[in-house]
C-alpha cells in the first residue's frame, strides 16, 4: 500500500467512531459570517472613509486622485522626495504607463526577470484586484500584479487602484476572486494589509521587516 492509502485508511478507521463534542452541523454561510464580523458601513462613502482610516492606522498611505494628471503628479513627487533611481512594474494599462512616465530605468517583470535586478529597484508599482474596506487590505495576485515578488521585494510598493475596485468586506473579496478567476486561479493570491512589519523584538513594532517599508495606495 502507498503511504497515501495508509493515511487514508487510518483516517477512515478513526472517523468510524463518532465525535463526542458537537458544535452544530453544516457549514456556516456567508451571511452567518457577516452577522458576526466587524461592521463596514452601508454607503460607498462610508466604506472609503473606513478604508482610509484602516490604511492610516496601518501606516500605509492612501490617496484618492482625481485623474491621470494628478496621479502622475503624485508619483513624480514620490520619485523626487525618495530619489528613486530604478522602478519595477508589470504589463498593465495603469501601472505600466505611469511607471514609464517617470522617465527612469524600468524593469517590467512579466516575461521573467533577474531577481538581483528587481532587488536593486527602489519601488515596485503594481495594480491590484481589489481593495477591502473592512480591513484596509489590498488583494494582489501573481497573474494581475506582476508576479510574486514585485509587491514584496522592493522597499516601497505603490499600488494603483480604481475606485470601483473597493469591496466592502472579506467575504466579498473572496467572492470576487472566485468570480474573476474561478478554475484558473493565479498560483499566488495575497491579501496585503499595510507595509511589512514585525514585533519579534520585545513586541515593539518595526516596519519593513522583509517586505516593503512603505505601502502607498493611489486610487483613481
Amino acid at each position, binding site marked *: 500500500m*502507498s*503511504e497515501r492509502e495508509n*493515511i*487514508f485508511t*487510518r*483516517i477512515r478507521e*478513526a*472517523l468510524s467512531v463518532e*465525535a*463526542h*463534542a458537537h*458544535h*452544530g*452541523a453544516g*457549514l*456556516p454561510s*456567508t451571511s452567518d*459570517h457577516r*452577522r*458576526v*464580523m*466587524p461592521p463596514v458601513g452601508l454607503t460607498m462613502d462610508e466604506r472609503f472613509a473606513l478604508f482610509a482610516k*484602516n490604511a492610516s492606522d496601518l501606516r500605509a498611505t492612501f490617496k484618492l486622485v482625481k485623474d491621470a494628471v494628478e496621479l502622475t503628479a503624485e508619483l513624480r513627487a514620490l520619485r523626487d522626495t525618495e530619489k528613486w533611481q530604478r522602478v519595477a512594474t508589470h504589463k498593465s494599462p495603469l501601472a505600466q504607463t505611469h511607471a514609464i512616465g517617470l522617465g527612469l530605468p524600468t524593469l517590467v517583470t512579466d516575461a*521573467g*526577470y533577474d*531577481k538581483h535586478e528587481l*532587488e536593486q529597484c527602489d519601488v515596485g508599482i503594481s495594480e491590484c484586484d481589489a481593495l477591502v474596506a473592512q*480591513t484596509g*487590505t489590498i488583494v494582489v495576485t*501573481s*497573474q494581475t500584479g506582476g*508576479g*510574486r*515578488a*514585485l509587491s*514584496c521585494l522592493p522597499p516601497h510598493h505603490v499600488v494603483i487602484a480604481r475606485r470601483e475596485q473597493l469591496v466592502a468586506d*472579506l*467575504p466579498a473579496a*473572496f467572492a470576487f476572486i472566485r468570480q474573476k478567476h474561478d478554475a484558473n*486561479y*493565479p*498560483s*499566488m*493570491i*495575497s*491579501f496585503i*494589509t499595510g507595509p*511589512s512589519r*514585525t514585533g*519579534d*523584538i*520585545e*513586541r*515593539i513594532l*518595526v516596519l*519593513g*521587516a*522583509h*517586505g*516593503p517599508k512603505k505601502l502607498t495606495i493611489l486610487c483613481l
Partner: protein
Amino acid sequence: MSTPATQFNEDARRVAPDLRHRGIIQTAMGKYEVVRDQRKLWFQDWQGARNLAARTKFEAVNHLDQHLDQFARLLESRGTKVHWASNAQQGRDIILGILREKGAKVIVKSKAMTSEEIHLNNAMEHAGYEVVESDLGEFIVQLRQEPPYHLVFPAMHLTRGEIRQTFQEKLNDAPSDEPEDLTMVARRVMRQKYLQADVGITGANFCIAETGMISITENEGNARLTAALPKTMITLVGIEKVLPRLEDLALFLPMLAVMGTGQALTCYNTMYGGPRQPGEADGPEEYHVVLLDNHRTALLADAEQRDALGCIRCGACLNVCPIFRNVGGHTYGTVYGGPIGSVITPHLRGLTQWKHLSEASSLCGACTETCPVKIDLHHHLLQNRRNASQQKPSWWQKLVFKIFAPIANQPGLWSLTTKFGRFGMKLRGLVNGTVLDPAHSWTKTRDLPPMAKQSFKEWWKEQK
C-alpha cells in the same frame, strides 16, 4: 536519568521564581492583552464568531478524508507534487530526497512548527545543507541554537540587549540595541540568503480543499519571499489543517490575527495553489507539498479529544495560561507548549512519558474560554489524567484514595480526623520551615494557611 517529567520539574523550579523572566513575559503579554481585547470588540459578535469557527472546524475534521482527498487532487491537477508522510522519519526523508535531487545548497525557511516537530533543520544541517530561518524571531533563536519559546512569538523571552549580543557574536553586526536597527541587520543578512537560496521551505496555516490552495499568515513578508525567489518550493503541513471552502478564510484569517497578535489582519495572508503557472512572471518551477500525519490520526481516533485537531495555533491559550506564564515556554520540553501542547503531546509522543503535562494545570479553564475554535482544553487535560491512571495506575495514589474514601464517607471519622489535623497543625509549628515538616514540599514555595479553629458543623451547633 532525566525523563521529560523530571526535566519539567527542574526547569519549572528554576524559571518560576525568576523575576527577570517574569517581568519580560508580563510586559509582552500585557501589550498583547490590550490590543487583543480591543480587536474582539471590533467584531459584531465575537462569541458568535467562535461558534461559527468551531462549527467549520468540526465539519472539516470530521470529514477529513473527503477534504484532504479533494485538496490533494486539485493541487496535483495544477502541477504540484503531493507527498504523504506517515511519520517524522518519512517527512524528513522526502524533503532530503528533494534537496538531493535539486542539488540544493542554501535553503531558506519561513516559520513552520511542523518542521520543528520532525526536527527537520537538524536533519538538513546534518546532511550538509545551509539552512536559514527567515522569520525574525526564528532567526534569532536559530542563531542562539534554542528552540522557539512560543508558537507565535519565538523570541519573546529575550530582551533587545540579549538579541544585540547574539547578533554581535554570530553576525558581527549590531549597531545598537534599538529594535529597528536590529531588524534591519536581519533584513540585510536575509536579503543575501534569499538571492542565493535554491529551495524555500514553508509551513501552512490552512489548506483549502475546494480550491487546492494553502494559506500562509505572516507579518514580515519572509514567507512571501520564500515562496517567490527560490526555484523549488516545499510546504510541510499537517493533514488536519484543511478548511472546506475559500470563503472560510474570511472568518479564520481575522480570528487568527486577533487571537495571535491582536491585529485585525496580519500583514500578508497569501494563498498558493501551485508552481509558477503559464503566463506568470516568477515563482518556483517546482512545488512540493508534504502532508504529515505523525500521530494526528491517533488523535483523530480519540472521539473525545478529536476537536483538538481544529487548533489554528494562534497561541492564545498559552498567553492566558497561568502555568505557561510562570514556567515559560522552554520548560515544556515540547514543540507545542502551553495548554494545547499539554493536550496533544501525549497523543503525538506517548502518554506515559508526557502525562505530567496534564498535571501542570490549575484547571482554571482560561484556555478553553479563550480558544477561538472552542477546543475543550481543560477537560481534555482531565481526560488525559484519567487515561494515564487507567493505563498505569500509581500505587500510592490508589493507597491514598483507599484511606481517604472511608474517612470522607463517615461523618464521625471525618470530624475526628479534622480534630487530629488541628492538633497536628499546632505541633507543626515546632518544625515549621525545616525539612522535618511533613508539608515541607508544599511550604517551600507557598504558605500553609492555618486550619479554622472550629469546623462549620461545630459552629452551627453552637449557634443553636
